[in-house]
C-alpha cells in the first residue's frame, strides 16, 4: 500500500487565522522577520538566549507548532550540516550553524503563516516593487503548496500505470535515477503549464492595464505601532549587544 495524498490538497504553510499576527500589517511582519534575522550575527550563547525570547514571541503569536513543523521538515538538512560541521570543524560551529538555520526557518514561518499572497503583494508594491513582479512573487508564494502535492500525485500516477519499479539496494541506483527523471518530466511540464495557464488567465482579465487601481489599502493599526516599537528596540539591542 502506498500512502499518498490526494492531488489538489495544499500542503504548504497554512494560514494561521487565530494568530494575533494575522491582524498585523504585512510591513510590520516583514520588519519583525528582518529584525529576527539580524540575530544570526550573535555569538552562540547570545543566539541561544535570543532564540528563547523568539520562541516566547512565537508562543504568544500561536505559531510555535507551525514553526516547529517547519524546522522538522528541514531535519535531514540540519542533521547533515550538523554532522559535517562537527566532523570537519568543531562542535561549536555545528551548533551555531544549526541554531541560525532554525532561527531563519522560524522567521520564515512567522511571516508566511500569517500573511496572504495579496498582503504580500501589497507590501511589495509599497516597497516600490513594480506590480507585475509583485504579482508574480505573490502567485509563486501561493503555488508553493501545490508543488509537493503535484510531486506526490505524479509518483502515484506512475505507480498506477506500473512504470515505477521498487528497486532496493545500491545496484539499483541507476534505476532509481531513471525513476527520478521519469518523475521530473511531468513535474516540469505541469509547473510550466500551470504558470502559462495563470499567465493567460491574468492577461485575459487585463493584468497589463496601465489604469489599474488597487482595491485594498495597507494601514498601520495600534498593534502594528506596538510591534514596530518593540522591533526597533530589539534591533538596537542586537546591534549594541554583539
Amino acid at each position, binding site marked *: 500500500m502506498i500512502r499518498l495524498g490526494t492531488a489538489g490538497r495544499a500542503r504548504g504553510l497554512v494560514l494561521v487565522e487565530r494568530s494575533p499576527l494575522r491582524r498585523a500589517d504585512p510591513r510590520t511582519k516583514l520588519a519583525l522577520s528582518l529584525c529576527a534575522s539580524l540575530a544570526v550575527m550573535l555569538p552562540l550563547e547570545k543566539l541561544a538566549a535570543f532564540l528563547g525570547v523568539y520562541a516566547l514571541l512565537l508562543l504568544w503569536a500561536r505559531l510555535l507548532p507551525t514553526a516547529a513543523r517547519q524546522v522538522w521538515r528541514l531535519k535531514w538538512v540540519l542533521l547533515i550540516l550538523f554532522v559535517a560541521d562537527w566532523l570537519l570543524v568543531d562542535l561549536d560551529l555545528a551548533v551555531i550553524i544549526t541554531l541560525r538555520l532554525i532561527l531563519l526557518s522560524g522567521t520564515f514561518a512567522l511571516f508566511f503563516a500569517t500573511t496572504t499572497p495579496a498582503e504580500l503583494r501589497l507590501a511589495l508594491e509599497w516597497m516600490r516593487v513594480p506590480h507585475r513582479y509583485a504579482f508574480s512573487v505573490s502567485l509563486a508564494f501561493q503555488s508553493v503548496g501545490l508543488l509537493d502535492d503535484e510531486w506526490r500525485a505524479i509518483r502515484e500516477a506512475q505507480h498506477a*500505470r506500473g512504470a515505477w519499479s521498487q528497486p532496493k539496494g545500491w545496484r539499483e541506483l541507476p534505476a532509481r535515477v531513471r525513476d527520478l527523471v521519469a518523475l521530473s518530466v511531468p513535474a516540469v511540464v*505541469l509547473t510550466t*503549464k500551470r504558470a502559462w495557464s495563470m499567465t493567460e*488567465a491574468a*492577461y485575459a*482579465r487585463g493584468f*497589463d492595464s496601465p489604469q489599474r487601481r488597487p482595491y485594498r489599502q495597507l494601514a498601520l493599526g495600534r498593534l502594528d505601532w506596538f510591534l514596530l516599537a518593540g522591533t526597533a528596540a530589539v534591533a538596537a539591542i542586537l546591534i549594541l549587544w554583539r
Partner: protein
Amino acid sequence: MPSVVSTREAAYRYPQCDYGMAPLSLEIGRGEQWLISGPSGCGKSTLARCLTGLIPHLYHGVLEGEVWLDGLRTTDAPLWQLAERAGLVFQNPAAQMLAHSVEEEIVFGLENLGLPRDTIAQRVEETLAHFGLEAMRGRPPQTLSGGEQQKLALASIIARQPPVLVLDEPLSMLDSTAAAELVDQLAALSGAGRAAVVCEHREEYLHAIPGLRTLRLDGPMPYPAVRPHLWTGHAERNEASRDGATGTFLLEPNPSPLRQAPGGRLEAKGLSVSLGGRPVLRDLSFALEAGQVVAVVGRNGAGKTTLLRALAGLQKHEGSVTCGGARPDFGLVYQNAELQLFNASVREEILFRVPEPDMERYTWLLAALGLARYEQTPPLLLSEGEKKRVALATVLMRRPRHGVLLDEPSLGQDAAHKAMLVRLARELAGAGQIVILTTHDLTLAAQADRLLLLASDGFVAEGVPAQVLHDGAAWARLGLLVPEWVLAPHPAAFSNCPQAGAEARP
C-alpha cells in the same frame, strides 16, 4: 444588428507546427449566443484565443486575416483593451484561479479596469449575490468543487461586464446539474445584451439556450495520415471521421489480442476512506462480475476518484478489496493523464519497462486507440484526449490481471473518440476483464453494463443503466439532473459489441 466580433479569413498556425485554425470568416452580433463545435484538434481553443486577442499577443505563431473585436483590430490594440471587450473562461477552472479567496478572485479583474473602490465593492457584492457565492467569499478557490470553480471563473469575468464572453469547453469537468446551471447563466447573458461564444464537445446541454447559433469546425489535418498497413479496413473511412459528427472514426483493426484468463469477481467489503479527517467513502460493499463495463456517476467531490484509487491499491482504506479472492491488479488511467507520461515518443511511452513486449498487442492497441500516426510524437505534445488514450495504452500493455479503471475517460474526447473508447472497453470486457469508469458524461454512462450512483453517504442506486437512469428518486437524492436526451431510446449497437458510429446520436 452590428457585429461585435468579426473575423475575416482569420487563420492561425502555431510556431514550429503546421496546424492551428483553418481560415474562418465569422460575424457575431451583440447579444448573440454561438456554439462552436467540432472534433478534437479542429481549432476550437485556438479560435477562442484569437477572438480574445491572446493570439497574437501571447502566442507567436502566424496569424493571417483579421479579427475585429468591438471596433478594435486584435493585432493593433493592446491586450488589456481587448480584455475589456472580451472575457475568456478556460476549460480547467482550477488553472485560472489567481487569488487566495473567492472575493479576491473577483476583485482582481475589477482592479485592472481602474474602477473606484466603491464601484468595485458594489460590483463584488452584486456578482457574489448573482452567482450564489456569498457564503464562500472567504474560501480559497482551490477548496471549491469543480462546478463552483467554474461558476467563480465565469463570475470573475462577468463582473468586468465585457460585451463578449468566450468560453473554452466550460462544461467538460462539470456534472449534469452544474452544467445545466452554467447553461442557465449563459442563457441569461443574451437578455443582458452580451454575446457569448461557447466552444464545447458536450453540446447537447447548450441547445437549451434560446436562439443558439452553431458553427461546426472541420479544422486542418494536424498530423500525418494513418499508416494504412495497420488496418484491415477501408482507409477512406478515416477521412469521414474528420468532422466528428459521423462518429465513424474507427477503422477495423486486426482481431483483438487482448484475450487473457478471466480475472475473477471483484468484491469490496466495508470500504471506507477518510482524507484529512473527512470521510470520503463510507462503508461501501459491492461485488462486480468479471467481463463487464461499469460506470460510476456522482456529483463533483462524491469520492469517485478516491474509489478508483482504493480499488487500484493506491489509497489507504478500511475494509477489504479482493478480486477472485486475491489482491486486485488493476491499471488506472488518471483524469489528468499528463501525470503518467514522460517518455520522448508514444512508442517509448507504451513500451516503457514492459518485459518482452508483445508487439502484436502493441500494434493492435495503437490502431484501436487511434494512435498509430503519433507513434514517434512526444506524448506530452498531444491533445488532452490523445494523452488519455496513450496512458490507457501504457496501462493495457502491462496486462493488468483484473482490468482497468478509467477516471473521466471522455474528458477532452470528441464523439468519435468516445466511441473508440467504448469499443475498447467492450473488447476488454469481452476478454473477461472488468472496466470501471467514472464519468459526468451520462451518454457514456448509459452505455455501460452496470451503472452505480455514488453519493457522499454511499451508493444510492445500481443496476443496468436503462433502469437506473429512470430512477428519479435516486437521481434526486444524488442531486443530479438526467437530461431528456439521455433518456431517449438508445441504439442497441452499443450493448452488443458496438460500432463507433452509435455515439453520434443527438
